[in-house]
């Protein structure tokens, strides 16, 4: 594909103290592509995802979204850390969905969705509410606008969280194990929404344990272990014919 990749990671590394969580991650995500990241827990998947929208600061390598360096500005040879405001501005284009939903419990579904568009993008409440209702319908919750998160099932909460992220009109959506905290019978409804989103052409990076979803929806599957990309490629190929021993060992446990 031509043009600028949506996400470009070049030897990205991240340490927590002496613990090297990411040890040189290089990958590329094109616009409209769906990338699934799988791997054992502690392999750095979530950390990498959080680096992409600057919730974590990268220690080494280069990470850029849509051609813009994440968290830094380059002037000549030197890198300058971005101001908090500028970092926040970058995040506007990146939606994120969390494992534990992280809906705001004191706000209704609609209020959850309209908060950031109103406060960050300064959209009027009326316009934001219209958009929120549309988004709720899109995730199949048109009638739940006035419900507080505590009154929604886990699956419904996660769908509201997806609608909340979409309300900022992101170019890129990050999903951090979006179905891991759900009861098994609720996983399907969330995956369906994500499939619809992928079909609509959204660029997505999904950290997941749902191999079926990865096989069906992902354009690229990445297997991460111990802070490095062990194997990447077409999901069917990796799932059916893994090349690396570590991939084989992992897949034999989860498939």
């Amino acid at each position: 594909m031509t043009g600028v990749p949506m996400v470009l990671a070049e030897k990205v590394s991240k340490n927590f103290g002496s613990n090297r969580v990411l040890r040189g991650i290089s990958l590329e995500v094109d616009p409209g592509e769906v990338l699934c990241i799988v791997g054992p827990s502690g392999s750095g998947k979530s950390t990498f995802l959080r680096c992409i929208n600057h919730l974590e600061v990268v220690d080494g390598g280069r990470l850029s979204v849509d051609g813009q360096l994440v968290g830094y500005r380059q002037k000549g040879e030197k890198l300058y850390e971005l101001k908090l405001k500028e970092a926040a501005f970058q995040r506007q284009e990146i939606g994120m969905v969390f494992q534990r939903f992280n809906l705001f419990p004191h706000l209704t579904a609609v209020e959850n969705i309209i908060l950031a568009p109103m406060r960050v993008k300064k959209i009027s409440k009326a316009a934001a509410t219209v958009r929120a209702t549309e988004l709720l319908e899109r995730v199949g919750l048109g009638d739940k606008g006035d419900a507080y998160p505590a009154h929604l099932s886990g699956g419904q909460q996660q769908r509201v969280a997806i609608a909340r992220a979409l309300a900022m009109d992101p170019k890129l959506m990050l999903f951090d194990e979006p179905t891991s905290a759900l009861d098994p019978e609720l996983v399907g409804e969330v995956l369906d929404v994500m499939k619809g989103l992928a079909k609509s052409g959204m660029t997505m990076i999904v950290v997941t344990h749902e191999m079926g979803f990865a096989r069906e929806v992902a354009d690229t599957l990445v297997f991460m272990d111990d802070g490095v990309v062990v194997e990447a490629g077409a999901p069917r190929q990796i799932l059916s014919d893994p090349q690396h021993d570590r991939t084989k060992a992992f897949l034999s446990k989860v498939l």
Partner: protein
Amino acid sequence: MSEPESDRMIESEPDRKHRDRSGQDTDNSPAEAIVAIPLRHPWRIVIAVVLLLGLAVFVLDAAQRADYGWPDVGKYIFDRRISQAAWVTLWLTIYSMIGAIVIGLLLAIMRLSPNPVLKSIAWLYIWIFRGTPVYVQLVFWGIVALIYPVFTLGIPFTTPWVTVPNEIFTNLFITAVIGLALNEAAYMSEIVRAGLLSVDEGQAEASTALAMSWGQTMRYVVVPQAMKIIIPPTGNEVISMLKTTSLVAAIPLSIDLYGVSRGISAVTFTPVPLLIVASLWYLLFTSVLMVGQHFIEKRFSRGTGRIKSGKAPAAPEPAPTAGPGAPGAPLGTDFGGKG
């Protein structure tokens, strides 16, 4: 969920169980009720009787002792000077608490901010004001007007451009409010901080990921959720402040309840009845506040942070968010011992 709804649910519970079981069991006759002799607690009764007797002896004795001056208690309890002084005490409490809450909120946010300068200032403030007795602080504020008789503006060690006489600290009521508020702010900031910390980290993270600034995250996401942790111990602090106002004698301000009681007794040489009068007024106020506190705590210990009563479905999922009983949510009551 509104109150009556939940009541109905609880009532209907045994009925349903009973029906379910009678549908399955072949034997429909109810099980025989247990007839047993309940465990006796003879010592409780003995101790209670002994204590009541002791109390009765004390009351009968006190009623006859001249030192208590009961006629004087009756005479001064509704004395105009006393009720006016009670009014002063009430306003001292209100103004000081408002000041303390505002400064405390500011300090708590400063302490949690990513800015190391603000953090250090807040830490230093709390260190000083929580680390010295409130009585000593009040004495100090009382003599500030002597240390700084005028406020000046200008370049240090040259003739000042503007000179304003220090009228703030010559007004003893304002001095008392400032002294009490600055001290209490240190405690309030810890209460607010505990409230802010009780909000799940994921909340701030989700807000940040939505591109909201730190200030917006605090204002729209964290502080509203922290309120239910902050408000009950704040009620406690109000009650505590009401009594702490008696220390303004250190400034010395003597128009509050305790001050006026002492003033009257200094003339009449009847200290005991006036102490009783003052105590009764303090008790009246704290009792009213305790009732208010009870309702506030009831209001804020309900469920998760739902403000409006919902038209929502009757069977809510357990929310994944931190409730009021969340671990790591310290209560404000254990900051104790001041003054």
